[in-house]
Structures are given as structure tokens and as C-alpha cells.
């Protein structure tokens, strides 16, 4: 069948060709599902074989996920609350991420372009960057109190540095030739910032935004260790306290899927805006 798709010249019955084409289109998805399927299988078998008694089986988690989403099975405090937690986490992730992007992109453009700004801020950010977001947790709770504002701040911190660093990198790696081309065409000085620097740095800025949004989801659990009542991170922390491992795993899966879907949105936007770049054709 795969041979029939490879060489379109080979005459084949219409139905067979359609099937082959469908298979070709589904191929990436099917390939991508192999590893997760194997992991599920191993998980299932490991639980069945009694390798652990603390981890529920995939089927149990799936059942609980349904209850978590729509209720009607266990009807406990967490039943049918998925949307509330997801919404709370999304607000913090996107809010913190948006604020990080709003500060980091202009900051990065300035650091990359103006030596004085670089001399003022570069050493400071280099010094602050290695400090893990988790280390900021106590201080953040003192500064912003227990609750969502602290979570928001930690997400902001997590997303900030990748966006900043990639923006700086993008600005600094603009081909010098393009400045020469712009100036001999009559575009000089500050006009070059919008006509040359910004578009040339856009691919790097997008790389930074992708990494930043990924990290925003990455730190949401830490962010919601600050004593917020709602949020996927809070659910995971509650699950740990209550020894409800199925709740923890449900929270993990939802974060994974939400993070993945957010990334796809950024990638779609990126492919649209960077149509001109041979590296970003999608």
C-alpha cells in the first residue's frame, strides 16, 4: 500500500488508492501514538503484575478522569470540577506568560540593540537567571501573599528568561548585510528598527515564546503550591496530601494536554507569520 502512494503512476483501484492516501495522511499520528500506547501497556501490565500497589491502573485513572470531568461516578469533592481547575490554571499560565512576553520582548529588543541598556541589565539578568523558580516560592509568598498573585508571579518568572534571551539573541544575530542593504536603499537610523531588526528577529522571538509558554505550564504546579484553592497544580498537591494518586495522575495528564494544545496554537500562529522562512513552513 505504501508503494502505491510512493509512485502515483502505478494504476490501482480507486478505493485502494483512497485507502492508501488516508493511511499516508494518518501515518504521522499513528507513529506518534506508538510510544504512549506502549507506555500505557507497560503501566497496565506492571499494575496487574503487582509491581506496585500505590499506583492505580490506567483503566482506574480513565474512570476517575471521567468523574473528574463530568462527575456521576464517585461524586466526591473533586467530581465534575475539572473545568474550574483548568480555567484557574489557564488564567495564571496565560496571564503570567502574557505579562512575561510583554516585558521580555521589548526588554530583549532594547538589550540587543542598545549597548548601554545591555551593560545595565545584562549582568543583572545573568545573575538572576540561574535561581530556580522553586527557590522564589517562599519570597514570592511573602511579597505577594498566599494565593493566585503568587502563582501568577512564579509563572511570570518561569516564562520570562527564555523569551528575553531568545529575543536578545535574535536581535544580535541580524545579518549585518541587511543593515547595509537597508541604508543604501534610504532606510537609516531608527527606521531600521521596525523595518529590519524586528522582522529579522521574529523567528527567534517565536522560539522564545514557545519555550516560555512551555515553561509557564511547567511551573504551574510550583506556582499553585502557594495555597490557592483551585488549579491543576492545587489538585495535584491535594492529591498528594490525600494519598489519592489517581487524582495526581489526572492532573498531570490534563496539564500535559493543555500545554500541548497551547503549543500548537503558537506553532500555527508562527507558521502564518513566518511563511517567508524556509525553516518555518507548516
Amino acid at each position, binding site marked *: 500500500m505504501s508503494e502505491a502512494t510512493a509512485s502515483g503512476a502505478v494504476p490501482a483501484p480507486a478505493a485502494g488508492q483512497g485507502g492508501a492516501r488516508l493511511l499516508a495522511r494518518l501515518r504521522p499520528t499513528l507513529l506518534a501514538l506508538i510510544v504512549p500506547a506502549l507506555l500505557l501497556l507497560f503501566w497496565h501490565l506492571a499494575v496487574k503484575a503487582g509491581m506496585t500497589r500505590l499506583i492505580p491502573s490506567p483503566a482506574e485513572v480513565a474512570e476517575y478522569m471521567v468523574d473528574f470531568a463530568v462527575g456521576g461516578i464517585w461524586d466526591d469533592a473533586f467530581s465534575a470540577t475539572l473545568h474550574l481547575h483548568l480555567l484557574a490554571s489557564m488564567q495564571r499560565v496565560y496571564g503570567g506568560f502574557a505579562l512575561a512576553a510583554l516585558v521580555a520582548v521589548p526588554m530583549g529588543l532594547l538589550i540587543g540593540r542598545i549597548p548601554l541598556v545591555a551593560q545595565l541589565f545584562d549582568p543583572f539578568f545573568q545573575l538572576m537567571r540561574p535561581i530556580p523558580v522553586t527557590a522564589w516560592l517562599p519570597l514570592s509568598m511573602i511579597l505577594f501573599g498566599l494565593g493566585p498573585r503568587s502563582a501568577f508571579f512564579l509563572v511570570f518568572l518561569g516564562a520570562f528568561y527564555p523569551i528575553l534571551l531568545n529575543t536578545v539573541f535574535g536581535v544580535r544575530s541580524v545579518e549585518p548585510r541587511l543593515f*547595509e542593504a537597508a541604508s543604501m*536603499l*534610504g532606510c537609516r537610523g531608527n527606521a531600521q528598527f521596525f523595518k529590519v531588526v524586528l522582522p529579522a528577529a521574529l523567528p527567534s522571538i517565536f522560539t522564545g515564546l514557545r519555550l516560555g509558554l512551555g515553561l509557564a505550564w511547567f511551573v504551574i504546579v510550583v506556582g499553585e503550591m502557594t495555597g490557592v484553592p483551585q488549579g491543576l497544580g492545587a489538585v495535584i498537591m491535594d492529591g498528594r496530601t490525600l494519598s489519592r494518586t489517581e487524582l495526581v495522575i489526572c492532573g498531570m495528564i490534563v496539564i500535559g494536554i493543555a500545554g500541548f494544545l497551547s503549543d500548537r496554537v503558537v506553532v500555527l500562529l508562527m507558521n502564518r507569520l513566518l511563511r517567508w522562512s524556509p525553516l518555518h513552513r507548516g
Partner: protein
Amino acid sequence: MAELPILDIQGVGKTYTLGDQRIEALRDANLTVRKGEFVCLIGASGCGKSTLLRIVAGFEAPTAGSALMWSKPIGEPGPDRGMVFQDYGLFPWLTVRENIGFGPASRGLGKAEVRDIVERFVALVGLTRFADAYPHQLSGGMKQRVAIARVLANDAEVVLMDEPFGALDAMTRERLQDELLDLWQRTGLTVLFVTHSIEEAIFLADRVVVMEPGPGRIASEHRITLPRPRDVASPEFNDVRRELGARLHSHHAKKAA
């Protein structure tokens, strides 16, 4: 030469300082170019031909002598001196149309005016079918056509070309050479063209300026009087090529001795 030259290079030198090392890239260059002339600069690498071109473009300031255009010192780069680079220097995020319109738009022309200019020059270089393509979708020859068109669209009086066809295959190079001559004859442009190919220089130029390295300087000038269109396979062409080749090699032999 009673007529005022468009370019007047007098005693121009360029010395770079790298740490405490001083590198003399160009020494005492003298060259005058009349409006409408096609001048080729030729020589081995390190002879200062690109440096001279970049000084005329305004990308670098001379450290000695004076470089004048219409008797005024050359300052910053500007639309009156368009540059065509070997590596094209197109804006990858702009389409063919937008690349050609970049200059006119930067000069503050109105939208309708820019559009008219763009359409005219897209057609002039034969890229109408590719007007909405991005540079990465074009062949090397097409990219160089865009680079030439954007300079012409910006009303450049002098076109500076730094080995523009050096990265192209032989067939494409010949076609672009013909097209360039055609444009030059139709528009009355002044062209300063850097190359390291003797044949290319003789095929294109009214005048060939031979440069030599260590430090870079102008060694000799040769007027090419062969009638156009020139036939690279003709005996007359070969005579000129042999003579100029001997001249280039004698410079190098002298240097080696």
C-alpha cells in the same frame, strides 16, 4: 575631460586598525568615472577592489584622500548609489514585490506611486510570475534580478556591483550579463563593477581598472574599444583577453619576485 565626472576618487586610502596592527587595504587610489560609463575593477583578492567599492557606497570612510560624487564628498550610504551584493542581501521576510518597493517606500513615496514603480521594475527584470514569492523560493539568478531591480527602482544614479554574478552558474551568469548590459544601455546608468574574471570585465566594461594587492592599489587602466555586442569567442576579444591577462600576471610576477 572637460565634463564633470560623476565619481572623483583622489588619493583615497584605507587603513584598518586591528588592536595595535595596522592593515593597509587601499593606498592612493585615483579614479574618475563619467556619467553613463561602465567601469570594471579587477584583481586578485586583497587588492582593495571591494574596499574601494564600499567607500563609494558610503559603508566605509576613507582614511586618506577624498571620494566625491558630483564634486560633493561621499558621506552616508544613500539611494543615489545602489549596491548589488554577491550574496544578494534581500530581505527574506519580504516578497519580490515588497523587496523592490522597500527603497521607494523608505523614501516616503505614496502607496500608489510605490505600486506603479514596483510593477514597472518587476516587469523590467522579468519576474512578474514570481512577484509574490519570497526570496527562499527563488533561484540565485532570480534573487540577483530582484537585487538589481530594487536598486533601479530607487532611482540609483550609480550602481555598485560587488562580484554580483560570482555565485551563479555559468549559463545564468551569461544571461544576467546580457540583461545587465541591456539595462545599462537603455537607462544610461553609471556602473562600477567588481569582478575577478578577466572575461567578464572585458565583456562588460568601457574601461577595466586593474588592481593589485599588498597594499591594495590601482595598477593600470585599460579602455576596451571592442564594438558591442561583444563576442567572447572572437579573435579580437581573445587578443584583449591575452593582453590584459599578461598585464595581470606581470603584476603578480613582480610581486612574487
